[in-house]
């Protein structure tokens, strides 16, 4: 087809470009949400006058030292989840393409990330 990928028909090329746009939008949106939460949390921390830096545990966010620490931790979590949501989005999109081989690969990555959370918690 003219001006596009070799050996690809127009419908497939359009679908590929659509997938690329969706993943790109997802990554940008996740980054924006994370940056806003982190910036707001940092501003709250500075205004509060507290200068104490404490560790926050993923499974005990409610025990964060202050609401500012909680908002910042949520920002970090949003940032960390953005690449994970990208994997989930690709599972959905590749399922629609019936590209089962790579649906399986992406699911394996999701399972590994779940194991990471559980192993860290343990």
């Amino acid at each position, binding site marked *: 087809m003219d001006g596009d990928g070799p050996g690809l028909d127009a419908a497939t090329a359009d679908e590929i470009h659509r997938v690329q746009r969706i993943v*790109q939008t997802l990554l940008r949106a996740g980054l924006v949400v994370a940056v806003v939460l982190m910036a707001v949390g940092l501003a709250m921390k500075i205004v509060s006058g507290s200068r104490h830096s404490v560790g926050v545990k993923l499974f005990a966010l409610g025990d964060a030292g202050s609401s500012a620490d909680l908002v910042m931790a949520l920002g970090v979590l949003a940032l960390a989840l953005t690449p994970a949501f990208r994997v989930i989005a690709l599972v959905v999109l590749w399922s629609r393409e019936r590209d089962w081989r790579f649906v399986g690969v992406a699911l394996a990555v999701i399972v590994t990330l779940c194991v990471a959370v559980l192993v860290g918690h343990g």
Partner: protein
Amino acid sequence: MDVSLAAVAALVTLGIFAGWLGAIIGIGGGIVIVPVLVLAFGFDIRIAVATSLVAVVATSTAAGSAYVGKGTANMRLGMTLEVATTIGGIIGGLVAVLIAPSVLSGLFAGLMLLTAALVGRRGDAEEASGEPMPADRERTEAIGWEEPGALAGAFYDDRVGGLVTYRADRVAVGGAISLLAGTVSGMLGVGGGFIKVPAMTEGMRVPIKVAAATSNFMIGVTAIASLFVYFARGYVHPYTVVPVALGVVAGASLGAATSSKVHPSLLRRILVVVLVFVAVQMALSAFGVDVGR
């Protein structure tokens, strides 16, 4: 520990510098962030590594969205190797939280010396050839496609003025090297691109532009595997992490805007000297010698 407003400003500046440096000469921010947090601020190296991993995710997410938009990154290839890098990331994260911090500092010093050698060699080769090295060339724009159902694709290469097709092979070799890359990333808080890119170019015969873009695309998922381990164990300190992460995002944008005004080879020479000097400090610190702050 307490972090003064001046220290917060210093952390933001550190992030801006790390992000800017990464955008200019293509190295991850972790190699700068971790030693500064340990040696200058006195943080436990595991807190420093967790902070660096958040910065790595921020950089990768920003860069990855740009690469995907151009179609240079091969998402199927990246996803396939991510199976290995995420397993490696878990291993690296667990090892890091279980071994003595001094051992981790010693390993990081070794990584800094290796990075200094790679950066120096790239600079020498660039001067000898008179043209930008692949790691810089791949950062130029390229438009590409990947083939559904396969580890293959094509991209438009402006140097050859046409389409370049490729097909990745030897997946087991690429996967084994990616496992190592994930382990190093999770243990030391760096992106590991210096291992993943050769895994794809040399191990799987993928063109450098595609390999570098795919590596950037993968780094975020690799980093979160180990970040979840550190986060679950309480090594993420939001008041330390956030100023650095916000700085990195700003610094990466600044680097993209100013890259044409900076001479990368001079910057590389300075960086090599600084990396060697700081590596010695990290090694001394690992052996219990007080390097002072």
